[in-house]
């Protein structure tokens, strides 16, 4: 196993780089999308709120692989042709955004409404109250759920291999189909995922501690 890694490490590292790149971009952009969705659902008018609810229901109610195929294989039918990595990132952002919206909705609603009232009472606009008072607290509370989402995303990003994006899983599959050492190659892949996830969990745990409110 160690031999496989030392022999082919540039392949693994390149794949790992793509995996982490895709995951980080998708997760952070997913947070932005999820925040907007959650705000639309909680503070938006009836129409916005309904629209967000439907969007989330559709995204969470269909397999990620199907969403990925629609974007990568479906859109070219309408003249939109995407690079595999870009297609993967877009579908991951949409998917993760829908899940993160629900985590954030829960955490926003756990912040007492009185704090928003207090913000309004000192002359803040509703928007200022949300930005300066509600979100800083809600985002802190969502970190554990968000860590979970990040772990899922690292692993789900391996789905991108089916459309040929050259992330870690794809590199492994290509390698194994050349040297026929399926067991060893996939074992190396598994260990790499595991290590990366352990490291990120540790990092997010540190972040959580750092920003915690007494």
């Amino acid at each position, binding site marked *: 196993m160690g031999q496989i890694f030392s022999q082919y490490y540039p392949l693994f590292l390149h794949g790992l780089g793509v995996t982490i790149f895709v995951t980080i971009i998708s997760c952070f952009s997913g947070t932005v999308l999820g925040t907007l969705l959650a705000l639309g659902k909680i503070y938006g008018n009836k129409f916005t709120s309904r629209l967000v609810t439907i969007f989330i229901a559709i995204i969470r109610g269909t397999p990620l692989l199907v969403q990925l195929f629609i974007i990568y294989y479906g859109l070219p039918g309408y003249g939109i042709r995407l690079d595999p990595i870009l297609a993967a990132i877009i579908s991951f952002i949409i998917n993760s955004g829908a899940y993160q919206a629900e985590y954030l909705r829960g955490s926003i609603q756990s*912040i*007492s409404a*009185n*704090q928003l*009232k*207090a*913000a*309004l*009472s*000192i*002359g*803040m*606009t509703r928007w*200022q109250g949300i930005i*300066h*008072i509600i979100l*800083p*607290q809600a985002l*802190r509370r969502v970190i554990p759920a968000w860590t979970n989402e990040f772990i899922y995303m690292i692993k789900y990003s391996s789905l991108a291999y089916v459309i040929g994006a050259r992330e870690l899983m794809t590199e492994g599959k290509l390698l194994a189909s050349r040297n026929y050492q399926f067991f060893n190659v996939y074992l190396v892949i598994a260990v790499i995922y595991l290590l990366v996830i352990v490291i990120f969990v540790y990092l997010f745990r540190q972040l959580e501690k750092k920003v915690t*409110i*007494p």
Partner: protein
Amino acid sequence: MPTKHLLKIEDLHHSFGSNQVLKGVSFSLNKGETKVIVGPSGTGKSTILNNIIRLVPPDQGKIYLEDTEITATKKINEVRQQIGFVFQDFGLFNHLTALGNIMVGLTKVKKMTKQAAAELALNELDRVGLKEFSDSYPSQLSGGQKQRVGIARALAMQPKLILFDEPTSSLDPELTGEVLKVMRNLAEDGMTMLVVTHEMGFARSVADELIFMEGGHIIEQGDPEQLFTEPVHQRTREFLFQLTDLYGEGGA
């Protein structure tokens, strides 16, 4: 009509669903006055305060802050900057220190520099006796301290008047004194205050006028001493003595 009053309330009505809590309430407040509203629960006292800064817009009636009709203005945020509000449950921002709670309105709403805001905030904390707690978070403060931070936050905006919505009702009895003392000092310094409270001792010794409400109406209003000793309505006497029995003369 605009008048010389600092705050004027005319014929205020408000309902929650089919429950009509305010049925035509009018009164006014001059600069430097402290008025205390008392009355049984559910009689609309807090609703009046919420109506004044339109956290809950009234169904009917007019409210003026000097020449501005609050009930009609498009610049409600500017009005709110001029009227402090002290909440029963403090309403502190949990992610900010005591100092941060006071600064955030100064920097984000009044657009003051951080340095100027910190200086003013520290002054206001000193005024409520909490200078050494500036770096404490709300969870590290007692209820009485939290409420004093709440008052300091309202003060820092340099409001024309402050509304107090049952400021000591969430506090353990031994903590109400420190809050009432701060409020008494404010009244003596000439702050205009409208206070909803059950603290009869405070009402009797600090208020310029006591307003007794029940069932969505003002039953009686006037000099507190007179309401306590020779009220016009029997109901006023019953209520005030019942409260005095319950809460005592206590408090600052």
